[in-house]
């Protein structure tokens, strides 16, 4: 077990953003967390990365509690977050941005090897090596953010909405590379995503969050078969009921 989250609860001032969250990630797994706006997905990742301190609950990463550590210490342990909105350093070059990913590392040879890997996955970054990161397109910035996080030698890479603001084709491209990174390096992934179709296609295990709670979890293949998931996230449901007339009631979701 790489990551185990037990009964995690986070508050923003007087508002509870997430409660009673249990979640597991195994080595080499891609785990997708789905949910609508405000479901607490970003809160979950920020809490895991140490950006927010949880009110209660435990985060066990490789058997050690990390919920009270600062974000830099958590990064050094191998749990690395690609934050929402990419957060590249706009006035540093692409190469310097990637170098910052390896800031806490001392093993120069492996850093050089990882840099080659990142350039292999994202050839466009090599082309723009000397450019300021602020001048890249949204998709390139997302690639840079993922590459930079990989430069920290993560055991678990956490991606917060990698598809945010990207064209569908680019979203698929990014997810294909995320899968490839997992296949080539065995890095586990925890992906928060609104684009459920893509996430379920590439993920192994899926969790569904609503209003700060995990309401369902299963393998991604099983989740994409569920009627509630299809209706809520995959656009499978319709406003027309089985009788062929417009549905005038809201069916209660059970997530079974």
């Amino acid at each position, binding site marked *: 077990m790489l990551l185990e989250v037990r009964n995690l609860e986070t508050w923003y001032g007087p508002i509870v953003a997430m409660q009673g969250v249990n979640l597991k990630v195994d080595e080499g797994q891609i785990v997708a967390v789905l949910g609508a706006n405000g479901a607490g997905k970003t809160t979950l990742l920020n809490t895991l*990365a140490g950006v927010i301190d949880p009110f209660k609950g435990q985060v066990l990463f490789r058997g050690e509690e990390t919920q009270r550590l600062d974000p830099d210490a958590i990064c050094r342990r191998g749990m690395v977050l690609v*934050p929402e909105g990419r*957060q590249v350093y706009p006035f540093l070059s692409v190469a310097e941005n990637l170098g*910052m*990913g390896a*800031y806490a590392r001392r093993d120069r040879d492996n850093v050089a090897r990882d840099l080659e890997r990142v350039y292999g996955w994202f050839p466009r970054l090599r082309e723009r090596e000397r450019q300021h990161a602020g001048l890249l397109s949204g998709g390139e910035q997302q690639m840079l953010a993922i590459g930079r996080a990989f430069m920290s030698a993560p055991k678990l890479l956490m991606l917060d909405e990698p598809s945010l603001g990207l064209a569908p084709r680019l979203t698929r491209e990014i997810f294909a590379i995320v899968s490839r990174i997992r296949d080539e390096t065995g890095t586990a992934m925890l992906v928060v995503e609104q684009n459920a179709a893509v996430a379920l296609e590439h993920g192994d295990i899926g969790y569904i969050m609503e209003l700060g709670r995990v309401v369902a979890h299963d393998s991604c293949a099983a989740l994409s078969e569920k009627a509630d998931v299809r209706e809520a996230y995959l656009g499978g449901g319709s406003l027309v009921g089985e009788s062929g007339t417009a549905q005038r009631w809201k069916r209660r979701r059970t997530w079974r």
Partner: protein
Amino acid sequence: MSPELALFAQITMNGIAVGAIYALIALGIVLIYKATEVLNFAHGDILVLGAFIAWALIALMGLPFWAALLIVMALMGAFAYGLDALVIRRIAGQPQFSGVMLTIALAFMIRGLVSMIFGPESQSYRTPWSGQSTQVFGVSFANIELVIMGVVLAITLGLWLFFRNTRLGVAMQASSQNQLAAYLNGVQVKRVNSLVFALGGATAAVAGVFLAPIALVDTALWLVTLKALAAIVLGGFGSIPGAILGGLLIGLIEQYAGVYLPHGFKDIAAYLVLIGVLILRPRGILGEAHGRRV
């Protein structure tokens, strides 16, 4: 060379020398501002403390000038580091004015401390270049001014190389551009910010040690903070090249005002420029066109 031209050359030289010191102070304030978003009003008082310690080391203990300079730089660097680590860091995330209030309060406390320890009188000390001058094309320039220019140039170049080429320097740039990302990359942002304060403190110390021989070692030296602020606004708030350019220009304007304008203009020239820039071109000479960048 005609006497008018010689006079002009001489005050230009004076202006550049004083301006170089303003530039160094402005540079320190901008570095700290960019890293921590705190506008350090105590900067001039760190400089005063440094100048008094230098006086004690040189005039009282008889240490050589360069040794005293290095000791004061190290002491003031450590002092500024501690100031951030123990006090200023605590207000991170508070509105901008709390940083202003806090550093103004610290400024008064440091100034009080200086007059408690060293007494209220002005002091002076000798430098290896006191009273010497060099003749260039029949105009004589004080050697200390040439040394000041050389030192400020060397420090600016050194800082430039440091920020571009070292791991810590790039990390300082990174955490000033995106603090959250720096945290997530494993940078100990709080410590890095304190180190920026240390860097600022050390440059303030250099400025103080070289300003004292051309002014006097006096608590009133803290007023250069305000001149440096005028320089920062003139050059463009938040821009490091702007701070240096602004510092040099304020130094020149002040010297010219002292000679070519009626008595009294020298002291208010910097503030007149400040007001003029704020009214006519609030973003300064090299300022960012689109306001604050996030």
